[in-house]
């Protein structure tokens, strides 16, 4: 890309260039942000800069004062940052990447659209970029170039989400469960949830459902103490495993994640519970291997039974669909990025 226009550059390290252990070392905790900004503005003398720090990336966006300045910037920044993180410059350089001018625009557009994320198309990154931009603006670190660049990247992300399949469909077991529950019950705030088993898998799905509004939760476990511990964490009710039959008829969503050699819920048990539900279906998610629910329950008319394979199949299907949309999305974002860079260079 050409070197006319603002001397825009980016020094970054992401999940694509650095292993987790290195990313942990390079991460910038909020209390250290002030020091980083001070370093960039006062020691490196950048007129504009922005630090984007998420669990998978640390990126420093900057605008140098001159072309010569930009040329030596990588070395200088690497030296300063490596000193800050107590690493050798060579070591840091091995796990970082450097981009300049139009490449920076293209990279940022990909980041905000979720193309560069570990989970392609995830939306959380856009919020994180917005937060970082707001922070830099508040500190007076973002100037006319970065302002325009980031505003345009938000527009590009919105375009990608609206016009391509990049963010379509849930791609994790937790979010697929939430999506299915929403297709059945709409708003989850009034849905009654029964979690059978207090293990990690169940907890993670419970967390997803609670984040979408599920409040009325009962946890049943072989060990009541485990159920109570989890119940305290999520402000819900804990019961003994022996009570699950009576609780089935009072539940809309049943999450089964119990380590058991034999099914703990049978077809007749679920048929009886479904009969009391009338117009409200019973959504049963069997997360256990071996399965906790008799497969014959899937034939019941008012029961929707999904096991781990079903959820994984949906997640994989959605992921493939997102990946299929990536090329189209990237191509258009590259064009958009070029257009934005041209307009920045023409200023």
């Amino acid at each position, binding site marked *: 890309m050409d070197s006319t226009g603002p001397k825009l550059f980016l020094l970054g390290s992401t999940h694509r260039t650095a292993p987790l252990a290195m990313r942990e070392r390079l991460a910038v905790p909020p209390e250290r942000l002030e020091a980083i900004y001070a370093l960039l503005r006062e020691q490196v003398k950048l007129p504009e800069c922005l630090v984007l720090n998420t669990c998978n990336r640390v990126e420093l966006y900057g605008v140098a004062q001159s072309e010569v300045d930009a040329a030596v910037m990588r070395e200088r920044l690497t030296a300063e940052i490596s000193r800050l993180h107590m690493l050798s410059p060579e070591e840091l350089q091995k796990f970082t990447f450097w981009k300049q001018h139009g490449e920076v625009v293209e990279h940022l557009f990909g980041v905000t659209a979720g193309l560069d994320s570990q989970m392609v198309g995830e939306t959380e990154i856009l919020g994180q970029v917005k937060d970082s931009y707001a922070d830099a603006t508040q500190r007076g670190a973002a100037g006319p170039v970065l302002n325009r660049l980031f505003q345009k990247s938000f527009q590009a992300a919105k375009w990608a989400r609206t016009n391509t399949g990049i963010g379509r469909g849930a791609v994790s077991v937790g979010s*697929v469960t939430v999506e*299915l529950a929403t*297709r059945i019950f*709409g708003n989850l705030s009034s849905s009654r949830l029964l979690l059978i088993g207090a293990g990690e898998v169940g907890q993670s799905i419970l967390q997803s459902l609670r984040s979408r509004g599920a409040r009325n939760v009962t946890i049943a476990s072989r060990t009541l103490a485990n159920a109570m511990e989890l119940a305290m964490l999520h402000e819900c009710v804990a019961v003994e495993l022996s009570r699950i039959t009576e609780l089935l008829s009072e539940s809309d969503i049943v999450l089964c994640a119990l380590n058991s050699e034999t099914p703990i819920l049978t077809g007749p048990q679920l048929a009886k519970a479904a009969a009391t539900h009338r*117009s*409200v279906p019973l959504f049963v998610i069997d997360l256990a291997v071996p399965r906790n629910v008799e497969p014959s329950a899937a034939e019941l008319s008012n029961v929707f039974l999904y096991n781990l394979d079903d959820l994984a199949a*949906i997640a994989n299907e959605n992921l493939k*669909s997102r990946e299929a949309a990536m090329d189209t999305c990237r191509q258009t974002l590259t064009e958009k990025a070029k257009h934005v860079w041209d307009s920045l260079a023409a200023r």
Partner: protein
Amino acid sequence: MLDNTPLGFLYAGIALYTLGFGVAVFMALRGKEHDRPVFYTLIIAGFLAQSTGLYLRGLETHSLPVGNAFELVQALAWVAVFLNLILRATLRLKLLGLFAAGLAAVLGIASLFLPGAHAQAAGVAESGNPWIEFHVALAVFSYGVFGLLAVTAIMYLLQRHGLQMKRNRGIFRLLPSLAELDALNRQLLLVGAWALSVAVGLGVLDWFQQPGGVSVAKLVVTILVWVGYLIAAWLRWRGRLVARAYAWSCVALFLFAILSLWPVEAGHHAPASSPTPTSATSNNSISKSNG
């Protein structure tokens, strides 16, 4: 074909509904929600064209333009689209517009094959009785509500089928939740049943005043439709007709209601004038107007 005559406007309405439906189906099959500005521009334009057509036809008879099977089905489509536009603004149910446009397009196209399209406007004119006109308007409204109920019942069945077959792509992911559709189905049945009950009540009063003006077939069909919906409402309220069975019942009842119109109309009336769906009783006025 598309001219400034009432028929021209009605044809334009059908064409626009069909186009809107086609565009939305194309998008939905690709797993995308339809482009709202384009879709609703087509549907609102269709609605305005149809309203104008029905209004002009009404002006010719100085009354409601529901005097033959063609006008009647056109009016049902109009009510369904009108209700959809209101529900769209209040409930924001995904894909309801697509399905309502589909209903309007199907009814509109079907109406072209019904007697009365090229006949002179018939209406329920010259009855001189505002209660009869009110009865007819309520009956048409209730049929429109039942039409929309059939549409939301089909949406419910589709969503349910998708969940049972573990399909999560395309149109299945875009449909509203089962809970939302079930709540709407319940409300639509109540509204439709109340409107039809009042319409039938008014008709019965008129029938007592002037008995003998209604064919037995029409009377029986009307009563069957009314009783059918009342039974469905009662069973739903008692919790005995729920979920899939309830949705199928709503679809079957509407099919029965709509299909019963044509044979009864065709076998009973001269081409220029035939009565309203439930207007077993309003036939008095029609009969009078027919001499």
